[in-house]
């Protein structure tokens, strides 16, 4: 069976689908309904058919919307834009090792690299800037640096 998170990888996917579902619900018993359904991507159409059945009702759409909203989110703050391929790879890894999650990407160039990860109230700073800060706050690093410099002189 097609699971929601196999189609919805990021919060932008989720928000887009929710927007379309709200529009479908508004136009449920009108002539526009079939037309609107055709504008959805193939995967989204399949998901609507699977979760709402042959006869789509307001209650079924509301249930589907509620299911989507309940999907937990992992928030990732990264330093640069992430390609779709990388997004898919990260999402697959999460699905395999962690569970059914949607990824929410934010950008902050001050991280330099790596990511800040937030999920279920937990926070992990795996950024390059944090690593550099921790390294440079170690007093011994200056000793090591000076010794190397003297040796080269």
């Amino acid at each position, binding site marked *: 069976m097609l699971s929601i998170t196999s189609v919805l990888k990021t919060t932008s996917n989720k928000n887009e689908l929710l927007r379309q579902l709200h529009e479908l619900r508004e136009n449920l018993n009108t002539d526009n309904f079939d037309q609107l359904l055709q504008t959805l991507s193939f995967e989204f159409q399949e998901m609507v058919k699977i979760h709402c059945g042959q006869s789509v009702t307001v209650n079924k759409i509301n249930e589907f919307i509620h299911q989507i909203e309940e999907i937990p989110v992992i928030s990732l703050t990264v330093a640069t834009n992430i390609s779709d391929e990388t997004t898919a790879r990260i999402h697959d890894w999460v699905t395999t090792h962690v569970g059914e999650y949607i990824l929410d990407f934010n950008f902050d160039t001050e991280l330099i690299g790596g990511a800040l990860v*937030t999920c*279920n*109230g*937990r*926070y*992990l*700073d795996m950024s390059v800037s*944090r690593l550099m800060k921790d390294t440079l706050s170690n007093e011994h690093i200056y000793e090591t640096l000076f010794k190397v410099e003297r040796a080269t002189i």
Partner: protein
Amino acid sequence: MKSYSDYLNEIEEVGIVEKVFQSLIYVRGLPGLHPSEIVIFESGELGQVMSLTEDYAEVMLLSYAQINIDTKVARTNSVISIEVGEHILGKSVNALGVVESGETTVKGVSETRYIFASPLGIGSRKNIDKPFETGVTAIDLVVSLGKGQRELVVGDRKSGKTQFLMQCARSAVEKGQICIYAGIAKKRSDLALIKSKFKEYGVLDSMVLVVSGSSDPAPLVYLTPYTAMTYAEYFRDRGRDTLVILDDMTAHAKYYREISLLANRFPGRSSYPGDIFYIHSQLMERAGNFIVTKKNAKQLERTNVSITCLPVAELVMGDLSGYIQTNLMSMTDGHIYFDNNLYNEGRRPAINTFLSVTRVGKQAQTPLMREISSRLNSFLVKVHELEQFVHFGAELSEESKFDLARGETLEVLLNQANDTIVPLSVSILVVGMLWADRLKDKQAEEVKAIKQMLVTKYRTDEGYRAKLDTLIGSNISFDIFIENVKSDSNLVQ
């Protein structure tokens, strides 16, 4: 205190603000949060956890700042604590222990204390056995207090309560005690006036003012008396007797009610929350007479130290049966009632001794003081009854007329200007003079002048002071004391 990002990286938990109701913030996330923990917002503001539910943590915001939805929150893994030390004497601080702007402080040795500390157990307590001098004749002789007593000061607005408290503070400081004054939800102008008065009297250096204005956030007002009590406990543990004044607890109850109603707590009587009694009783229990182990130069020393507490409750139209007022009466060791009618008659302080109670004071008194107190109480009741007869135009015997005249003189003696302190020994002496007929047929102004003269003499003449204190401190009865007053003219001139 560290920054938000320091705590975030250290504890590795984050929350998001989802709802804001004035000073109550609902935060989602922070799975390891525990009750009463301090949290820090992204903007640097602090909050205290009030309660935890499955979905949210309810946080009390401890500042004026506006917090937006989606603001991130980090745990600090600590509870609300203040820095205490000798450096805080003479300063005014807010409920979080931050010295008010414009004041500098030189930090010496200090420690951090949790403001919601549990009271000491029964094993560390002792019976109250020493008198507490307020410097107000009416209280010291009729409604006498002991060191470590919790005595409620209750009365209408503008009935002279704060003036009386200032007299108590002055008297306590003169006797070497530390005084903590908590101004709870007061007008800033009133707080400034109180501080300037203490400075004028020269007692500010032995005091700490813990203040919160009426426009301060409700959580800060709520924390004010707990902060004051924490400072008192610090000085108690240093072996110093301390007086704590909580002015006033009815305003404190109102601000706590506001927080509870915003937090959707079920309203009880008069819309106060169900735990309003506990909020005040846990505070009162931290005062008392204690046995404290103090580190001396070479060894540990066990000493008796007291925290005397004077909470204040405001009445409306003299109604003593209010919810908060009766709560406070039941958790204290007596009350002093300031009567508006007496105030309007010009009596200062306007204390109604018939409606005032002290449950503990007598065990702290010497036999002489006990006898004087007993006689005065009986005499005042007698005079009051005679005044009722006079009111109806009944004819009186010579003895009754004499008692009425003596009663009028006693009233003059018990009256006292707001800015004067009368030492206990002088109060006892003037009552002795009254019973020895030394003040017979004297006008009110003359009586006042004699009393003032004796106060000045007591303060300036060391020999006289020692003589009077020795006489009063010896185990004599009131009748023998009267005989001494009659025979020794040096005592009374």
